[in-house]
């Protein structure tokens, strides 16, 4: 039995390190494609200003990228170190996308990022452009595989539990990668990254325009960023709506928490614009409602309904009762894998195995389970409503705010009047933190809304952690907090410093720049260090 404090500490550590990692990832996703856009203009028009832009923004990109890579390492390890039961239970399915991410995406991104930074003099224009595109594609493919893995946690498709090996195994790779959750989460997250990159570039460019510095670079960067941003924000909002549609089917508890739905109501259901949810009393203390809008939003019809928390708890109770024999059969199979009657009992109840695990938290000996313990476990099946409800509203609110900003900014930029509209430039600077906060809020909606499961409906969070002592977990948490605090301070300092310094004033053009390395190796050929395998 795993200590509850250990589980809580593991969750805090995971949330803290994932939210931290997710400060850097979206900017990488978006900025990489913005770099590709700028360099595309450079290569097609041949205007050196665009090369200067690509070089300047890639410096900022690298400051951000370093921390993204570093904190990504933590995530890759953490499943094994802190969530070992989870890892062995679903590693068969969950590990595969992570490994493919390395093979297909991260390797490409990281190898070419070196060439993107160091290769300006060594590659032809076309080659360098291809390298930049590959960095952008690699970082987004990386996100694709991570979200395929996450999609499995949200809605386990293409897998089944094997009572002989005591873990889940893959049944269909296609179902795993084409699962609607994986797909919709990927597009929503990747495009949210584009928005983040666009707001960042627009904000920094506005900062220069307000100070009348680097006007040529700032105006062009701003134009590209706002066009990029307006399209991406439209995308992120519509895809977010579609994601809600998918969630409504796969994760009714998350949806009910997002909307603060305690009691079932007939269609058309009203929408809580603002409410104060109170979990212990299972009601909203106060709510501002708009009639009929919820049915429209979630089911895209006036006659559709979604189950509320009262209904979902009743369903969970039934499933727990059905899941208990499954867990008991599993125990018997663990002692004797040939036990045919246990296997038959398992097969009859296996759909609710996860719910059996859920109640095991309160009743380690399932034969002695009481109705009140079942009720307690059923209450557990609802995520923390207020947190999910408010994160969701914060995310949507910030998304709409950014949409309004981008529409206005695009309008003025296209009319070439943006440098005179100082108020919107000031707004642009103040917008910089908004997408980052919206990204974090989105993570909270998705992952808090998944509770109490690590794999929705299959594996409860309380079972998933490693069997460490509280001391170990406190030690590692303190270590991460200390290390990460130093990192963020250094990163912010360098980022602000690089922005203040701006691009080199002399223009950073082609000819006057000293070569990073001599274009030709001074030594006689063959000069290829440890890389000649394919040439020779």
């Amino acid at each position, binding site marked *: 039995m795993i200590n509850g404090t250990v589980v809580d500490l593991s969750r805090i550590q995971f949330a803290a390190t994932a939210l931290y990692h997710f400060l850097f990832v979206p900017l990488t996703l978006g900025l990489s494609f913005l770099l590709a856009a700028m360099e595309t203009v450079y290569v097609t028009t041949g205007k050196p200003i665009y090369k200067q832009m690509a070089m300047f923004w890639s410096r900022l990109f690298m400051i951000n990228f370093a921390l993204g890579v570093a904190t990504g390492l933590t995530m890759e390890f953490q499943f094994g170190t802190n969530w070992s039961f989870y*890892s062995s239970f679903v590693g068969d399915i969950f590990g595969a996308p992570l490994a493919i991410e390395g093979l297909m995406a991260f*390797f490409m991104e990281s190898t070419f990022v070196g060439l993107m930074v160091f290769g300006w003099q060594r590659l032809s224009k076309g080659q360098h452009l291809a390298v930049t595109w590959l960095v952008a594609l690699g970082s987004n493919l990386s996100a694709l595989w991570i979200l395929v893995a996450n999609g499995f946690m949200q809605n386990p498709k293409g897998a089944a539990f094997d009572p002989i090996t005591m873990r889940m195994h893959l049944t269909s790779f296609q179902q795993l990668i084409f699962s609607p959750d994986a797909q919709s989460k990927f597009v929503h997250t990747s495009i949210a990254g584009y928005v983040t990159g666009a707001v960042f570039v627009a904000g920094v460019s506005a900062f220069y325009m307000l100070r009348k510095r680097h006007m040529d670079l700032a105006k062009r960067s701003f134009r590209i960023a706002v066009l990029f941003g307006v399209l991406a924000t439209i995308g992120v909002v519509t895809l977010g709506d579609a994601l809600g549609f998918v969630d409504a089917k796969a994760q009714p508890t998350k949806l009910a928490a997002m909307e603060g739905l305690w009691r079932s109501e007939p269609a058309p259901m009203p929408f809580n614009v603002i409410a104060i949810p109170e979990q212990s009393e299972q009601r909203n203390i106060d709510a501002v409602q708009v009639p009929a809008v919820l049915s429209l939003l979630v089911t895209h019809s006036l006659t559709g309904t979604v189950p509320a928390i009262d209904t979902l708890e009743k369903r969970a109770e039934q499933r727990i009762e059905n899941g208990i024999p499954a867990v008991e059969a599993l125990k018997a199979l663990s002692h004797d894998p040939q036990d045919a009657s246990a296997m038959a009992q398992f097969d009859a109840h296996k759909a609710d195995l996860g719910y059996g695990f859920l109640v095991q938290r309160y009743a380690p000996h399932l034969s002695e389970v009481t109705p009140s313990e079942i009720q307690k476990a059923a209450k557990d099946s609802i995520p923390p409503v207020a947190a999910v409800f408010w994160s969701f509203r914060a995310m949507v609110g910030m998304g709409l705010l950014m949409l309004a900003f981008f529409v206005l900014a695009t309008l003025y930029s296209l009319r070439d009047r943006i440098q005179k509209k100082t108020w919107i430039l000031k707004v642009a600077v103040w917008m910089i933190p908004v997408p980052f906060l919206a990204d974090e809020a989105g993570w909270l909606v998705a992952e808090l809304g998944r509770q109490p499961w690590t794999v929705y409906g299959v594996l409860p969070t309380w079972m998933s952690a490693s069997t460490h002592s509280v001391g170990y977990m406190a*030690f590692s948490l303190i270590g991460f907090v200390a290390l990460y605090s130093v990192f963020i301070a250094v990163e912010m300092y360098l980022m602000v410093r690089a922005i203040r310094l701006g691009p080199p004033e002399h223009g950073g053009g082609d000819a006057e720049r000293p070569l990073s390395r001599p274009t030709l190796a001074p030594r006689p050929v063959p000069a290829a260090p440890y890389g000649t395998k394919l040439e020779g």
Partner: protein
Amino acid sequence: MNTFAIAQVIWWVLLGVLLMGLAVMVGMDMGVGAILRYVGRTDTERRVALNIIGPHWDGNQVWFILGGGAIFAAFPLIYATAFSGFYVVMLLLLWTMIMRPIGFEYRSRIDNPAWRNVWDWALVVSGAVPMIVFGAAFGNLFHGVPFHFDWDMTSYYTGSFLSLLNPFAVMAGVLSLSLSAMMGSLTVMSGAEGAPYQRARALAQIAGLVAIALFAIGGFWVHALPGYQLLSVPGLGVPQTPLQQTVGVGGSWLQNFGTHPLLWLAPLLGFTGMLGAVFAARAGRSHLGWWLGAGAWIGVIGSAGAALFPFMLPSSSDPSMSLTVWNSSSSELTLLWMIGFAAVFVPLILWYTSWAFWVMRGKVTEDAVVHDEHAY
């Protein structure tokens, strides 16, 4: 053997290949980090050393990430048990590893001796510690690790942090560090000129000789350690858990070498590679030395893997719960899909990595580093 068993063995080999890639490519960068303050006495000399691997460390590091991901995908039980069991060591590895990207990227952004000194030390630590941990983890496999499982495969580690730092493991850690120091020196030789070149040349020979001595001692030491044998298993290529087998302890870890004498080629490759690299460094042939050093890594890791097979994570507290190729792998379907992905992407990775090295070939001069705003 059925398809499942073949897929398991293929993944055992592939994992070995990825670990070798990790040792060679990450080990080289770590080596440069570990010897940074020795080969580079001035700031510019250090920047030269850093910029030799500058365009490549990022890509190389992915071998490490891929290694983790591949263990997770192909042998989830090993990933779960080893990473949680080696907890404090893993944290040490992680905390030092995550200083590296930041050290590289941020060190030269500010022209202040104190700032750069701090990051130089961070790079030394984050070069040396992970390589010691990497070797020590391997060393511990020969002793076995104290862990066992519940009925539902919850794993429990019952040892302490200090028991992971036993003499044999420490020796393996130093072996791994000296090999990477040798590779790092050869890498610096290939890209630097003048004083750093000469220092790296001397260091490559010393590190190589230390590695030869430790590898030889390790061989005799392993011979004296009791080995593990599978006494009964549900079958090869049959889905199973470690709860369904029995394991005996006794004899020697070198038994596999007795039954298959061809395996002696692995340690032979290890010794030849190290010795050849030492002579190549002496002769100033850094590229040849680098390839021989890569051969040495392949020999060393190959020897360890061959000795342990089919064991991957032996349990010292309950040997029958030891993790093997047969009981800790993913399902057949996952393994087959992953073989497919590896077959396509590993050659592709080797191809574009070679291309990246080819594009950035040549010496890094002090002048170029000082004048390039993008340089580390």
